[in-house]
């Protein structure tokens, strides 16, 4: 198949369009703005809605409104903007409105910087706003993933009536790679709950207010059962040379590509290393971790572009079965040699 050269952010935007997304609401912020700019160019030509909102708060609430009509809709932002969206994401999760939220992430806290980072891991995987909820979180590692995950994101969002977050480092949004353009899909989900005017049916109400205590508990139990179902069905990870690995690197996004090269290099030097790349950050692919431990991995090394947020999830998965260590940078994606150095040191110390 013919490949075309595309920038990550544009591949993601094009993927959304091919998934049938016909509305984009957003507020400019580096390094995510190319997504908005792509939509601003494309939508007038294909009958989609592009609107530059006055803030991320407004943008996410426009998403709430547009998604309530049953349309596929998206917003994108970064760091501070994603924080502002959290109010709306909590409402969207409870109202069960399908949509895709993109975080082309940068380093924080505060204004931080625009260099690549994975510092929003906690925010993304723990819900992020108030209340007991989750969004599904997909972590692309290539420009091809940016297109594919955008399309998959809309499928998952509609299937489970859940907001899906795609979280990619700024570098992935900016870099260019040749990709296969996927065929457009026609969304095939009935949305009888949508607020479109009550002609021929009883009125629909979309609300997140549950004043009677039993009703509130019932809602939370219902949401939990939905999250349990997603956990049972949708954990995704890529594993590489883990079958006989004594040391397993765990890394997502762009970091996983660096980690993979490091694994190949240390294997040449006789170290039995492997890699687990979580694709869904929530639900976290804990079973892949456990399987590697059962296959004999003594030590897990979490590699992150933050200060070690994913370590908690790996430890939860292992429940004391193996040890977890961490190596990370911020604003810089370490090169494979740097990771090889770290792995060799550990291997020597542990006698691997």
């Amino acid at each position, binding site marked *: 198949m013919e490949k075309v050269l595309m920038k990550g952010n544009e591949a993601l935007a094009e993927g959304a369009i091919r998934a049938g997304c016909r509305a984009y609401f957003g507020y400019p912020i580096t390094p995510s703005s190319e997504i908005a700019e792509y939509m601003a160019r494309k939508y007038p030509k294909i009958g989609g809605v592009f609107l530059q909102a006055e803030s991320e708060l407004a943008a996410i*609430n426009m998403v709430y*409104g547009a998604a309530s009509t049953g349309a596929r809709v998206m917003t994108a932002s970064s760091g501070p903007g994603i924080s502002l969206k959290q109010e709306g994401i909590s409402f969207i999760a409870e109202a069960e409105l399908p949509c895709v939220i993109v975080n082309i992430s940068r380093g924080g806290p505060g204004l931080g910087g625009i260099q690549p980072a994975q510092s929003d891991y906690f925010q993304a995987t723990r819900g992020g706003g108030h209340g007991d909820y989750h969004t599904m979180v997909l972590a692309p590692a290539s420009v091809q993933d940016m297109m594919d995950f955008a399309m998959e994101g809309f499928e998952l969002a509609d299937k489970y009536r859940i907001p899906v977050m795609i979280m990619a480092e700024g570098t992935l949004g900016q870099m260019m790679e040749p990709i296969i353009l996927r065929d457009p899909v026609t969304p095939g989900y009935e949305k009888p709950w949508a607020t479109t*005017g*009550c002609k021929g049916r009883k009125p629909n109400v979309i609300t997140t207010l549950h004043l009677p205590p039993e009703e509130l508990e019932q809602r939370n139990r219902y949401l939990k059962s939905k999250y349990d179902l997603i956990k049972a069905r949708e954990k995704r990870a890529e594993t590489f040379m883990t079958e006989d690995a004594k040391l397993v690197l765990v890394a997502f996004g762009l970091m996983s590509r660096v980690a993979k090269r490091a694994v190949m290099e240390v294997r040449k030097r006789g170290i039995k290393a492997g890699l687990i790349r979580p694709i869904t950050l929530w639900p976290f692919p804990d079973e892949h971790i456990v399987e590697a431990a059962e296959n004999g991995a003594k030590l897990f090394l979490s590699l992150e572009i933050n200060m070690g947020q994913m370590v908690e999830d790996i430890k939860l998965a292992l429940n004391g079965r193996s040890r977890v260590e961490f190596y990370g940078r911020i604003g810089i994606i370490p090169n494979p040699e740097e990771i090889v150095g770290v792995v060799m040191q550990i291997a020597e110390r542990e006698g691997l």
Partner: protein
Amino acid sequence: MKVVAKRPESLYDKKFHYCPGCTHGIIHRVIAECIDEMGLREKTIGVCPVGCGVLAYEYFNFDMLEAAHGRAPAIATGIKRMLPENFVFTYQGDGDLASIGMAEIVHASARGENITVIFINNTIYGMTGGQMAPTTLIGQVTTTSPYGRKPELAGYPVRMAELLATNEGSAYICRTSVHNPANVNKTKKAIKKAIQTQLEGKGFSMVEILSTCPTNWGMSPLKALERVEKEMIPYFPLGEFKVKE
């Protein structure tokens, strides 16, 4: 035989939870009548605020959503952009619209967003127990201005109709009251005009309605109606502030 006004189809046959003498209920009824008379019930999508109107979807017999505090205009924007043929309105209190949702309302108006806003100005936060609102009058006692609102501490009450009328995108802006039958009728006319503005695609429309909160004003229902006339109207004059032809 006495003729009793028929319940509009756009309202469920259900008792309002509003306090005695609260004019939220009258305003609900007027909105429902306008929607019925203009044949819009099946095309209508309403957005509730956070405030005493939060449960309005329990009364209106058409599609409705409940918004986060102040964000109703953004939600209505999202709906209207996807469904331009539908009639889309928000129902918002003064805390909702003029404080926490100030950015959303100003920009919906500035964009000439083709939605209709029903703005309930009762100079107080009703739902949360009577705190100061941006519209609270100078000298008015509330739980967070216990010595009366002082301009040197809390500034001056905002006049939303006048403010939004300055936006080019505003097509119809009007302030009315419901403190007596004549003014209820005028309110109904204004709401119809606002709806018509949207149906004709002219842009943003808002009717600001002076409303009572006897409970948090600490007044009898009758005294509350008097206060609207004697204290509110002098600061918040009634009338049309913008009519785009």
